């Protein structure tokens, strides 16, 4: 009987087995197909960085015209649900302490007088520091409203008009334009990670992994046959997200689709390597799922999806370079909005290729290590 180290017949048999295992298993189907759709809906419609529906408290000590004007403007502001009017400073603090309002505005006695005198009116804003992100955004909104008034009051004082900020690439700062491309990477990451991390662990639970190891199949064949289904499903999910970004959310796709596709494949391959490593060391499917999340969640947090990589300590910045998602996010966000030139894409593409090579090699070593 011929026993080469590589056989297409064996590979084909294993590939069919892997695809069927994913598609015929209701649990795998759930893990693979439900989260993407849920995440798409949740992230696209519910998770938002905008501040809406907040309550604000106002302690007005001034009885002049300008303070009334300010309060009226706040009243009609979209993002404020309710304006609490209070009459002592202590309550101001109480409301913030209880979390009933996110910010409180204290208007001093001489507010209108100072504006009438040509000075700028000064009002104090207290913000709930526990919700720092939303708080800061609220302050920004409040400042805009106050600045508008300042401009109105002193129409000829150009100097008071703030610098006009124009946001490039996403002029209206539509948060979906920013989130949906990123989601492509996250979904592909989790689906590929889960499919592969379950694959060996499932066989180990069934006892079929031993059966596979006593057959003449070689470790590279096992790795390839377990990578392909994840690669196929991950790529399809990625493409699904990209097309829903373009067609459903109308995000301008300005880069090269071919380069993005190549990056997506390399990205998934590097994740597949990680998933197979997790699977090789897990004894049960439960351990494998836990392992996948223990790697997946920090990857997302550190990838620059939610917080800029530049803000991290230097040694963590080094670590983020080893996370495939970091590089893929740069490419996918660049391809959508920035029309990123091929040169820049390549700068992020080669690290992906290196990571894929390293993780897949390590996965092979790990699986072979099972045969100690």
């Amino acid at each position, binding site marked *: 009987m011929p*026993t080469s180290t590589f056989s297409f017949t064996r590979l084909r048999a294993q590939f*069919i087995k892997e695809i069927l*295992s994913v598609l015929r*298993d209701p649990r795998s189907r759930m893990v693979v197909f439900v989260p993407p759709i849920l995440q798409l809906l949740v992230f696209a419609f519910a998770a938002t960085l905008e501040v809406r529906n907040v309550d604000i408290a106002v302690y007005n000590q001034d009885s002049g015209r300008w303070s009334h004007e300010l309060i009226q403007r706040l009243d009609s502001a979209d993002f404020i649900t309710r304006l609490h009017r209070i009459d002592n400073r202590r309550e101001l603090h109480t409301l913030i302490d209880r979390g009933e309002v996110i910010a409180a505005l204290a208007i001093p006695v001489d507010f209108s007088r100072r504006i009438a005198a040509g000075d700028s009116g000064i009002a104090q804003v207290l913000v709930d520091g526990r919700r720092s992100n939303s708080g800061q955004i609220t302050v920004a909104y409040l400042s805009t409203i106050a600045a508008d008034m300042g401009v109105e009051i002193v129409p000829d004082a150009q100097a008071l008009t703030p610098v006009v900020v124009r946001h490039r690439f996403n002029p209206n700062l539509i948060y979906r334009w920013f989130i949906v491309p990123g989601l492509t990477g996250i979904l592909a990451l989790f689906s590929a990670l889960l499919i592969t991390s379950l694959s060996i662990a499932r066989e180990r639970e069934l006892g079929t992994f031993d059966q596979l190891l006593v057959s*003449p199949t070689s470790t590279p064949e096992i790795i390839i046959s377990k990578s392909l289904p994840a690669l196929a499903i991950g790529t399809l999910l990625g493409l699904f997200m990209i097309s829903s970004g373009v067609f459903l959310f109308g995000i301008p796709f300005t880069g090269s689709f071919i380069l993005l596709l190549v990056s997506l494949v390399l990205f998934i391959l590097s994740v597949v390597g990680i998933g197979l490593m997790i699977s090789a060391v897990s004894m049960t499917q439960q351990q494998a799922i836990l392992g996948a999340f223990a790697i997946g969640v920090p990857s997302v947090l550190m990838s620059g999806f939610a917080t800029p990589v530049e803000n991290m300590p230097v040694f963590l910045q080094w670590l983020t370079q080893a996370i495939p998602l970091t590089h893929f996010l740069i490419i996918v966000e660049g391809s959508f909005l920035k029309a990123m030139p091929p040169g820049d894409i390549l700068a992020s593409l080669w690290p992906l290729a290196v990571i894929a090579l390293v993780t897949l090699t390590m996965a092979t070593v790990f699986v072979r290590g099972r045969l100690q």
Partner: protein
Amino acid sequence: MLACSITETTLQRENTAVVIEAVDKHFGNVQALRELNADIQYGRLTGLVGPDGAGKTTLMRIMTGLLAPNAGRVTVSGYDVVDDNDAIHVLTGYMPQRFGLYEDLSVMENMQLYAQLRSMDARYNNELFAELLDFTRLGSFTTRLAGKLSGGMKQKLGLACALMARPRVLLLDEPGVGVDPVSRQDLWRMVQALTDEGMAVVWSTAYLDEAERCESVLLLNRGQLLFEGPPQKLTAQLEGRSFRLENVGAERRTVLTKALDLPCVSDGVIQGAGVRVVLRDGAQPDDIQALADQAQVRLTAVPARFEDAFIDLLGGGPGGTSALAERLSPVELGSDIAVSCRNLTKRFGDFTATDNVTFDVHKGEVFGLLGPNGAGKSTTFKMLCGLLKPTSGEAQVVGHDLRRATGAAKSRLGYMAQKFSLYGLLSVRQNLEFSAGVYQLERSTRRERIDEMIDTFDLADWLSATPDSLPLGLKQRLALACSLMHRPPVLFLDEPTSGVDPITRREFWTHINGLARKGVTIMVTTHFMDEAEYCDRVAMLSRAQLIALDTPDALKQGAAGVDNPDPTMEDAFIHLVETADREMEARA
């Protein structure tokens, strides 16, 4: 006279621990128990006997109040298991198949935990613990983690925990599974002591030889009670129907096949060099005598066994001809040695699992690897089929070194794991296709072999079903079909029949015997001593070393003494392990 019989009935009733009345239990469409009526007495060991899926665990869980029957009622010590559920938990001690030991706690910590769960007075604990530790002989292991105990020791610790609250009824769910004969002997001794104190002990088992040790048995099959009473009563019905063809020797597999194909024979097995047969009810031993004459061997009548009776109740075992082996062409090998190992050693850290083991297995031999739990039997087995790399020494399969020519060696061996590792998510046909593909059969051969297997093993009606939904017997056939797809000259079987009913086991061994006759070499590990009897030679491992290697008959002979002139395989096992232990201690 009348008064006397009344007192007897009352006495019996007072002595009744568990009353089971017309109990029905189903899970969805699956009928687990049907119209079951039975009594269990105090001071007696009652065996709950039957193959996997007979309903043993379901009945156990009903008796402990963990499941409610769909119809009928069960009372334990006069308390209804449904209405007086709280009382049941106090009265009964239950040891499930996998006792809930906390693997990361030590032996002592586990016992303390169970004492606290039973809200027992801590002051009396030390005394009780000392007593239980002494009873279970776990005294020197109190600080060892439960996860690091051997199978037998875990069972004993489980038993100690179940005994914590001095239950009146003790329910043990398959305590003998995965426990070697030495530890099993210990468990029997402990249970004996408990019944002597008046406790009712229920021991569920799929091993029919265990049933014979019980004072009374409830024999279950597919949720129905086949027999209730002392096992001797059942075996007595078979008296005069069991025979053995003595010292048949090399021809025994052929003789067994011929015997099983006789219309008068209902069941037959190999026992060392002999063949043991059971005749059908009312059949005369003429034909079997003729077979004995033809083979020029002596035919002797032997006492009936409980297993004979069970098979007889189910209508006899399968025939003797293996459709599979009929189709195979005889195996041709370059040399007479099919499997060999030289100074095979495996160390895990500073623990030596297999220590310098050397032996050769001849072509067409059925070779058994036996040993107590943790003796290194499965480590050795795994090195021989390439699942583990030896630390030193070498292993060869049909002349190929497993380390150097891995692919070549692996394509020459077939492997069937415990619990038939099949792909549960794939259909029967997809499983067959996968094994054909992974052993690199080309398209035309592949189709031919798959059709042949479907035909041989009667799988045609089940092709689109998943293996998990198949009856056990079919599942086993499928696993065998998958492992033989590439016609390997060597077949490795890792505890192939654990938890399988005796009929399915017979069918399996019919195939194995057929394969051996065609020159396929069989390597097998097993906990069933009657399976060891099928082997041509048996290697006994204890504490990582090879302590004996001989034919089953020779091993049995070695254990014979004045008090036991005709020892069983189990006696031989215990004798060998204990002798080896003594020698090792003497050297130390």
